[in-house]
């Protein structure tokens, strides 16, 4: 497995993490080593084996679709944790000109 700086930049872009050129090189080396280890998985014969997504084979429990929590007080405590909020809304940089 050999990652290129472009591969790492593409992943960083997908993951929304800014990486400087030095970090790209450091990350590249680590990813090469880690995928060198993980590569063994591709040699294993798993024909006919169903993927296991969950530790316990039980169905997903569903609940009624109803509001169970939503007090203004709790809303305000949550909003207070945001870097920027106003009038009950989260603020982000302008996305539409």
């Amino acid at each position, binding site marked *: 497995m050999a990652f290129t700086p472009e591969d*790492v930049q593409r*992943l*960083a*872009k*997908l*993951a*929304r*993490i*800014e*990486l400087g050129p030095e970090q790209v090189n450091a*990350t590249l080396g*680590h*990813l090469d*080593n*880690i995928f*060198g*280890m*993980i590569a*063994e*998985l*591709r040699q*294993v014969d*798993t024909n006919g*084996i*169903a*993927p*296991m*997504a*969950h*530790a*316990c084979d*039980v169905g*997903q*429990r569903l*609940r009624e679709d109803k509001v169970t929590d939503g007090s203004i007080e*709790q809303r305000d*405590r*949550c909003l207070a*944790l*945001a*870097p*920027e909020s106003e009038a009950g809304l*989260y603020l*982000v*940089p*302008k*996305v539409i000109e």
Partner: protein
Amino acid sequence: MIHASLKEVVSALDAKKVSSLELTDLFLGRIAQHNPTINAFVTLDEEKSRAAAKAADAARAAGNAGPLTGVPIAHKDIFCQDGWRTTCGSRMLENFVAPYNATVVERCNQAGLVSLGKLNMDEFAMGSSNETSYYGPVRNPWDTERVPGGSSGGSAAAVAARLAPAVTGTDTGGSIRQPAALCGLTGLKPSYGTVSRWGMIAFASSLDQAGPMAHSAEDCALLLNAFAGFDAKDSTSLERDNEDYTRSLAQPLKGLRIGLPKEFFNADGDAATMAAIDAALAEYRKLGAETVEVSLPSIGQSVSAYYVIAPAEASSNLSRFDGVRYGYRAPEYSDLNDMYAKSRAQGFGEEVKRRILIGTYVLSHGYYDAYYLQAQRIRRLIANDFDQAFKQCDVIASPTTPGTAFKFGEKSGDPVQMYLSDIYTIGVNLAGIPALSHPCGEINGLPVGMQLIGPYFSEHRLLNATHQYQQATDWHRRTPAAFA
């Protein structure tokens, strides 16, 4: 009282030999004295702790005491605790004051347990040495030049240094068992779905499970009783009747079949560690257990499968940290995407970023089948191996770690070496089954841990076996000299 078991603490409270407030002050005093050395706690709020202790004393005076009312504990900083800063070891959450309680915390509060503070950990629970915490590494009380293990390293160090009698931890790939082993504690990872994940900051949701860490199996059983059980708020919580995890402690071990996987008992193991495990097995045989060889043919692939599945789930879970609703936001940026990218670059540490990138890769177009689905198929092979092995034995034994606590920096430059040190613990999380680590010896003054693994819902059996072993041995009572 600092060396007392939970049962002894409760007896002292019952007999009014000590109040919860006195106990709380005792441990807060020790924290003030020793935390500057070992860095186990990241947040303290003495006023809140004392208020909880006073409330516990009042409940006791009013005759409303539960089995653990007034006992001081502490929570790993991965659990949201209402009104407490909850950082998950990350700069991202440096100023995050949780607006609600995790179910684990809520149940401990309901049980009258007094919270002493929040415990340091590897950032977002990603690490095996506590070196990835933004708040500095935790030091191992047995040797402060060495790591306490991770990710629940603050939890383990706090109990080992007698700064808290028992604590909570979480385990995604060994994060309760490995630090328990390196710090000389007993720590249990319950069956997946036994303890609610609600309010526990998610790393890899199909693997994460909370559990108790304490000196003995009996203490772990008592603490687990306080917070385990079905919770409608966690969609993966299993709907079962509540269990009393102490119910089998006294059962004799006659006839217990301990399976020894040949993949773990071979010439590759560290000789001194294997000698300590052999001595522990001899003790178990004296107690009436027998050992049988079993095989886990796919276990060798568990680390690789884990380092596909866990980062994949982490890359998805950690997408919530975007600098919008809570957490760190970069001070300068040009637009929305730049704000995301800079906030995440500055808010996350190197190991967390690395794992997000691994996860992004294995889930990306063209690689999903080759890595992610293949890892999930191997996950099933590993789970099947355990099922097969448990037809021949009741529990499986192994070392918890390949060696004793290592020095700072020894493995942090090489992630692969760090990952491979979790070889004994990771398969258990993939299979979802319970396992615990208990102290079983020392090498050059450093604790050695033995792991016991059982089939789904066998926590009471693992605790029983360990309790019987701990009645006959005193490894779990040893104290690091500087903290005696």
